[in-house]
């Protein structure tokens, strides 16, 4: 048999391995050589067939931006499928996807985001940011990340500063496999292509934000690829100032609206002015508490800026109006001034609208367990339960107030149970995972929440103890809101076995 060894040639023969390009410098063609044309923008291309999961891009990104170790503007995740030995392990590496319609930008109350007109890069201005973290809820890719050390959010800007120098972004330059590149994309073409070319297993399904990252997938992948962090669902951040702020504003709105409605229907009653004063105090406490949620409380006022676009701005605006109206209303009740009925109506209207704005903040597709009518119902029912109870607790126990509270408690109970059923029965991973969290890790808190709701919202008021009932019901609603925050499972890219963001 003729030996194929005869074909062997020596190194100095140029025919040897003609396809190999010796001495090619890395990262030469990893960014576009030509300037962008009109209708184009920059975007990442990630080649899943090349990535070996080495995490170089992540470390290089943190070094480039001097970020602390727990921030990862670029992350590497792992997905696995098939069965031994035909197992498929694949890796994802993702920075920001520089969406065509970025949800981070649309939700931002202070206009800290811009979509760069020249490059299409979604940029974030740390100087403008007040650290409200609303963008971190809006982005389904977890691209914007809050840096508690600095009190602001930050995110991948495609190394804008390096690109303008003609240098590859840090992650691109660091990748030993050339799995990440920057390329130009024709925006109008991409609108028709992103569903096919922008999706990947282990990533949230590209939605109306139209992420621009192009992902090259392996030819044959198993039908089911599981995220490496699939079984590692852990409670999210509780956002305590927001637990306080939402529940207490709802209490105040509920109380003032109840006072107004009651006076309107049955005339003034004993305890109304005291109850209104207390509710006003609670409202101010709540609004004060909300600024503690911000990374940069001193700049809280900036949050009014984007009321035309951002639910968060609208919430701030409406609750500011509410606080003003409530002060006037409580004052007019206290001093018996005329016009109370009108002021009461304005207070109730602003407050109820404020609650709607509050609720709509949480109706973000990236956080499916929040994104439902249950949230709206939850917020209004907290108001309907705790508000009248406050009035009943302060004034002479009124049957109307008690019955209103008991009715709201029953509805809240129904609302919460329906939500649990909805979570448990869902096909969507994040919703089921939320249900799993509540049923397993948070089971005791959930039972306590229901216990307090039944005791404080129904039994105690009916037994004639509205004050104790209020305390219990308020505790129940605070606990419920805590569970609301910690049990949400955000959409996100697959993480590694250990390195999943809390989710």
């Amino acid at each position, binding site marked *: 048999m003729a030996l*194929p*060894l005869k074909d*062997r040639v*020596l*190194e100095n023969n140029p025919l*040897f391995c003609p*396809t*190999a*390009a*010796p001495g090619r*410098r*890395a990262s030469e063609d990893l960014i576009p050589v030509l300037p962008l044309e009109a209708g184009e923008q920059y975007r990442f291309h990630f080649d899943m067939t090349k990535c*070996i*999961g*080495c*995490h*170089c891009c*992540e*470390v290089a990104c*943190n*070094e*480039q*931006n*001097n970020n602390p*170790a*727990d921030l990862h503007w670029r992350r590497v995740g792992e997905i*696995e499928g098939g*069965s*031994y*030995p035909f*197992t498929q*392990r*694949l890796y994802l590496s993702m920075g920001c996807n520089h969406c065509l319609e970025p949800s981070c930008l649309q939700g931002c109350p202070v206009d800290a985001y811009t979509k760069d007109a020249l490059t299409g890069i979604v940029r974030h201005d*740390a*100087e403008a940011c*007040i650290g409200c973290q609303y963008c*971190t809820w809006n982005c389904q890719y977890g691209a914007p*990340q*809050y840096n508690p050390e*600095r*009190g*602001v959010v930050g995110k991948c800007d495609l*190394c804008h500063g*390096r690109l303008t*120098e003609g*240098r590859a972004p840090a992650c691109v*330059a*660091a990748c*030993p496999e050339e799995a990440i590149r920057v390329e130009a994309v024709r925006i109008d073409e991409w609108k028709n292509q992103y569903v096919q070319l922008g999706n990947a297993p282990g990533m949230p399904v590209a939605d109306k934000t139209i992420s621009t990252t192009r992902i090259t997938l392996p030819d044959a992948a198993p039908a089911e690829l599981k995220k490496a962090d699939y079984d590692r669902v*852990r*409670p999210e*951040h509780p956002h305590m100032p927001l637990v306080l702020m939402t529940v207490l504003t709802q209490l105040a709105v509920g109380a003032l609206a109840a006072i107004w409605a009651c006076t309107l229907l049955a005339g003034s009653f004993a305890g109304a002015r005291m109850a209104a004063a207390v509710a006003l105090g609670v409202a101010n406490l709540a609004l004060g508490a909300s600024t503690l949620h911000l*990374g*940069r409380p*001193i*700049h809280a006022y900036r949050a009014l800026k984007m009321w035309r676009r951002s639910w968060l701005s609208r919430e701030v605006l409406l609750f500011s109006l509410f606080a003003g109206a409530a002060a006037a209303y409580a004052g007019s009740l206290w001093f018996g001034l005329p016009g109370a009925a009108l002021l009461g109506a304005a207070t109730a209207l602003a407050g109820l609208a404020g609650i709607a704005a509050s609720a709509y903040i949480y109706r973000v597709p990236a956080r499916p367990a929040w994104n439902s009518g249950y949230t709206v119902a939850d917020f209004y029912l907290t108001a309907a339960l705790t508000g009248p109870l406050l009035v009943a607790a302060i004034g002479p126990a009124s049957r109307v107030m008690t019955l209103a509270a008991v009715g709201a408690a029953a509805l809240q109970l129904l609302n919460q149970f329906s939500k649990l059923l909805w979570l448990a029965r869902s096909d969507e991973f994040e919703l089921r995972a939320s249900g799993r969290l509540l049923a397993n890790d948070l089971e005791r808190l959930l039972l306590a929440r229901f216990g307090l709701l039944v005791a404080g919202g129904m039994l105690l008021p009916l037994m004639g103890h509205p004050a104790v009932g209020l305390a219990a019901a308020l505790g129940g609603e605070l606990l419920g809101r805590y569970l609301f925050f*910690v049990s949400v499972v955000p959409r996100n890219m697959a993480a590694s076995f*250990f*390195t999943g963001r*809390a989710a």
Partner: protein
Amino acid sequence: MKAGQLLGLDTLREKYAYGYDPEFGYTAAGKIPDRWVETTCGYCSVGCGMLAGVKDGRMIAVRGNPKHPVNEGKLCPKGLSEHYILEAKGRAQYPLLRENGKLRRVSWGVALSAMCGKFRGVQERFGADALGIVSTGQLVTEEFYALGKLARIGFGTKNYCGNTTLCMASAVSGYKRTFGSDGPPGAYEDLEKADVIFLIGANIADNHPILCQRLERNTNKTLIVADPRVTKTAMMADLFLPVKPRSDIALVNGMMHILIRAGLIDRDYIERHTTGFAELKESLGKYTPERVAQTTGLSEERLYRAALAYGRAKAAFIGWTMGVNHSTKGAETVNAINNLALITGNIGRVGAAPFSITGQCNAMGSREAGATSSLPGYRKFESAEDRGEIAHLWNVPVEKIPTSRGLAYPDIIEAAVGKKIRALWIIATNPAVSYPNYDVLKQALESVEFLVVQDGFHPTPTTEFAHLVLPAAIWGEKEGTFTNSERRCSKVNKAVDPPAEARTDFDIFLAVARELGCEDELFAGWTGPRDAFAEWRRVSKGRLCDYSGMTYEALEEHGGMQWPFPEGAARGVKRLYEDGRFPTADGRARLYPIEWEPHPEQPNAEYPLVFNTGRTVEHWHTRTKTAKVAILEAMSPRAWLEMNPGDAKRLGLKPHDPVDVISRRSRVSGVELRITEIVAPGQVFMPFHYEEANSNRVTQSAFDPISREPNFKQCAVRVERSKSAHTAWRQMPARMEAK
């Protein structure tokens, strides 16, 4: 927190500002140094060129050196964050001497006099060989060279070895047996030029990721990967061979069997450059595809595909690491691999080499210059001629040169248990995590009268046992050279000062010699590593590992040079044995018949699972360094155990359960369970980096009779859900700061 920060003033604006680095462009201002110091990475043996950024006496950044031929600017995640280790907590700062059971700070004078006094005392009472010395693969060559002289001549002990025995001793022994000398014959470039690359027990995507860019560039290759686990590297393969644990000899023999039958061997090469083919062929007769398929668990079809791909290659490269070396049959497996390369003529040509991918940054320097398993310059202890040469070069009486290597590392430990070794000096290694069968190691460390641990870090699990801790400078704080897997010597430079009273290992060795009164005999006129390098160049002259043509200046200019580099040469030699002449007595490479045997501890009803160990890309060895690099530690914060879903179901275990792994020796508790199809049914895998969950509590004391390398892989275990295990991580709150 300061008031300004509470209010939300941007007090950290400066920290997060950006600037322009003349070399690397737009980047965080905090990462722009005053100067870049060229050096070589101190982790693994890939030997990446680096630039260390120094500002105000601190190393604030590192970059891959774009001009270095090994890595062309790339670094792995460990390299990219290497500067953090210098100011990590737990650096050893002062000499510490144990008094009344407690380590107390002492002066260097007191420390060295205690050390030499105790060592000499033990040697006087129990003989010179009662002192054991265990070194490392982490020092610079100049330090290895100095330590070799100090150990062999200064202390005059035979019992001096390195932790490299836990790592690539099998490759060394295998090379020596086949080719007559140690020395990996190929070059990294071969990964780009071979048309078939066969990786055996080598997970380079996790362990040597920067080599992967070579594979990536090689667009017309067939990559064959043999591994019992579906590693990251296996996922890169064109042909994956999911072999049963330790069936690699059967696999390689089976491939040769097929190739001989198919005539896909290089008879001419065999004829001219090897001996022993007839015996080899005879021994391969029984490795029929049917039998090998049974032994390896591969289908015959897969076996044929692998054999034929290899046999038909124009240039075939074989790379291996610990899957081969960590075995009681390690050296012989290397021989089998060499057999395969030799009979197909896949050596000494572009793209063709049987190539041991080494572990530590300077394991090669230790092998060549360290006087551990051979005398400097690959000279043999057993050869009177070699001993005479070394005695002449060192200007010492030839009687002072040992006639055998003495005890290897595992035998030093067992001799300490048996009280034959009475004092021990451990340098830059952490056996309390890295040595197999922890209980034996513990007994050894507790048995010796005096234990000196010289390390850059304290406390480590090993320094905890020490009577004397000597604080040493680490990478970034000292000068010298590292030699990588492809025999490329690169310059290592000092960027910053060591902390407090820590000194370079080089200084420590000279100071010990001074204390012993043999400094003039060993190191006359030496003031720094440059003097050691000059002497090493003379000593290596004319040897296979010839450094005589290298200078520090030339090394820096070329970004490293490959040996042999004789004086007057214009360039180094990329590949050894291009002429087919080997440093054996008859100039021919030897073919050995190698027989497959089952691994020593087979599973049974009580211990039904085969336990495999390995690494992850984020960590280095026992984590004394990488555990302190926050970004790496966060990516891989604790040990895990990989188990096939079928086994987990049978055991009633759920993902993330804390489990205990139990062997006949001991148990490791509270390991987080990863249920995955990455491992085969009946096997489990665990990383060996973690002191907190140390895989070496269950591994066995089984060593390769030739290389003395431990069989870290394949022991029999059972797995149970932890009862009282340390499972604090389960309760750890979600990452609060991210939202």
